[in-house]
């Protein structure tokens, strides 16, 4: 079983998801703790979804969007605003905001994909399971005990 925590990747079906497939076509290996969910537009997810991810034991979340090439006009901008609120809520809960990252990946951006995965892995290896940073800082948990992750 995988000992490091899991990374959840929300990948847009028009850009980042095919981008992840291009990495596969190139047989470029990357850590298997990455779980890619295909989404139409990540603007669908409310703030609480991200917090739930961490509560349920996901160590890091990468939103791989289409960026400004988003086919849903205004969605990327709305998402970017929501991210600010999520980051604020994460801080309130003593979660390191590096655990959540919004980025743009195109259909052939294989190297950027690998870089994002590598960077997030470095971050979560350093931070440990969600909540560990809070324990280090001596902040008591607000929403019960954080799970240790699979």
């Amino acid at each position, binding site marked *: *079983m*995988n000992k490091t925590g*899991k990374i*959840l990747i929300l990948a847009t079906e028009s850009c980042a998801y*095919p981008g*992840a*497939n291009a*990495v*596969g*076509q190139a*047989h*470029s*290996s*990357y*850590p*298997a703790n*990455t*779980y*890619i*969910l*295909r*989404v*139409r*537009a990540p*603007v*669908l*997810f*409310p*703030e609480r*979804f991200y917090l*739930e*991810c961490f509560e*349920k*034991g*996901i160590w890091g979340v990468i939103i791989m969007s289409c960026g400004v090439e988003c086919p*849903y*006009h*205004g*969605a990327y901008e*709305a998402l970017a605003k*929501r991210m600010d609120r999520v980051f604020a809520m994460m801080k309130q809960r003593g979660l390191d905001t590096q655990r959540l990252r919004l980025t743009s990946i195109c259909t052939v951006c294989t190297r950027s994909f690998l870089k994002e995965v590598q960077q997030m892995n470095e971050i979560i290896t350093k931070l440990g399971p969600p909540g560990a940073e809070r324990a280090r800082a001596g902040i008591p948990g607000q929403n019960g005990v954080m*799970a*240790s*992750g*699979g």
Partner: protein
Amino acid sequence: MIMAGENEYGKEGAAGRRKVGVYVCHCGGNISDHVDVGEVCRRIEKIPGVTSVQNNVFMCSDPGQELIMKDIRSGAADRVVVASCAPNLHEATFRNAISRAGGNPYIYEHANIREQVSWVHHGAAATEKAIRLIAAAAAKAERLEPLTPIRLEALRHATVVGGGIAGLKAAIDLAKRGVEVAIIETSPFLGGRAAQLDRLAPSGESAAQVISELAGRVLNHKSITVHTCARIRTYQGYIGNFRIGIGREAPGGSGEWNESGKKDKPAPARGEFVPFAGVYAGEVLEIPEEFSIDTGIILLATGFKPYEPRRGEYGYKEFEGVVTLPEFIKMLALAGRGGDTLEIGGRQIKSVAMIHCVGSRMIPGIHEEDENGRLNEYCSRTCCTATLQTATTIRKTWPRTNVFEFYRDIRTYGRGQEELYAEAARASVMFLRFDPEEPPVVGKSEDNDGYALYARVKDKLTFGEEILAPVDLVVLSAGMEPNDVSDMVAMMKLPVGADRFLQEVHPKLRPVELSVAGILLAGTCQAPMDTGEACAAASAAAVKASAVLSRGYVELDPFVAEVDGDKCRGTGACVQACLKEGALELVETLDGGEKALRAQVNAAFCIGCGACAAVCPEGAINVKGWTLNQYEAMLDAIVSDDLFEEERPHATAG
């Protein structure tokens, strides 16, 4: 731990819960060399709700698809997960297989275990990831509902706004395909700006002939109705079903006669070409009237107007003998042929200066903004060739009239245009190149050299030498500006670019569509272009319109927002968050006998982005086929260790 659907999701089906069939592909070793397919199947079988687990060397092969079809037919499965290659390759294949077996194609979910597992991971980690991804797909599948694409009836009628060359071409194309067409034109004439030209550049066709031919076909086509002196006043509806209110006025009121037309003249015959005005479409009103048209598609071809130079810009309206290119083209057409020197209004024109890029390619900080703070930074595309054609005509018709062209870059990009440039050079048109920072200066000649004016420039072709050209006439190659369609922009919520032209959906791949479904655009309302390019755009818009209208209906993705009436409390948060005008609104309904506000989706407008789902405090709105519940279930399946418990009896709770 939620591994599979709980009761709220299992309302349907005789057995009380959904039956998920999972089909795992070996891909001839591409998957099975790295993922232990046997192990995968063994673990997936433990998921409550998964009723059939099969595997095949090639799921995409006929025997592979048959496994799915057999389970659907026998009732062994009513939800389907295939774990194989990337969904863009075979998702459609498997959805079709379900349809062929009599199932709804939307009860399908794909697990990508080749591109995102076996090709990038190895050993036990690959197998574990494959299991978790398939479990997630099964969790989603269990929550999928059968869907049907949204079908909107479409009236086989198109409205073309603008009777210029683009509008005429589009109307003819559509009528040929059997679509009823209404043309809404503000003037009494057809032909637009092209009718105000003499010869069309660069190939030199007669504008009168080209316009007469097109307008003749329009006026004689039984499926095309032309409404002149008309404007759109009101607008409602959506793709396939618009209703527009039209107002027609008597010309001479606010509806103008085009350029040369005057009310006191006898009206021309229907179909007659009036030089520099266009083809008279007949029947002008004495009393204004209003009526409405039901139409399936609106095609905007509202065209351009020439830039009007400011007073004093290169001496315009300051000195006699400074005119714009459109004005000059008309003078030239009326000038008598014969003689070596051009004569206009009885005055000999021995020398002409033509200045390019007037009202185009303006640079902030160098050029002056107009009273509304606007600057035409764009290139007007057509003026170089039009200027060269005019210059060449002068040189060839009146060899003793000299022509100087003051330019920045000669943009003869199109077929036959570079040849025209070479021809102008051979005809001894003199070219002078200037920097935008140091434009030519036009002034009144002070010595009695026999010329009224001069144009002076620092010529970059002769290494910055100051050259003074004595001239009788200065022609300003005025650029294009879009016609004012602010009323329609406001009514129809049309996007407009920084350059004030209408903004297409995508500047590379979707140039004739607007973000409002069912409204198309063609010609110079989108960007400067020449007549051939406007006709190509018109046909391209017509073919898009035909695709909608010839089917008689519009089929849209079923992935649109859906409101759960039981949960909605009418907070309006979704309406606020909605990114598409008209897709969501609050309506008054009866809830238990009491009036209440509830959100309502207009599926014709919804783009299915899910911005609404994120903000509803009640979780009452979701995108069909992509619900938050489904994602949460997938998340739970990914983090759950239930399927691995036998090896880790003391596992911590996930």
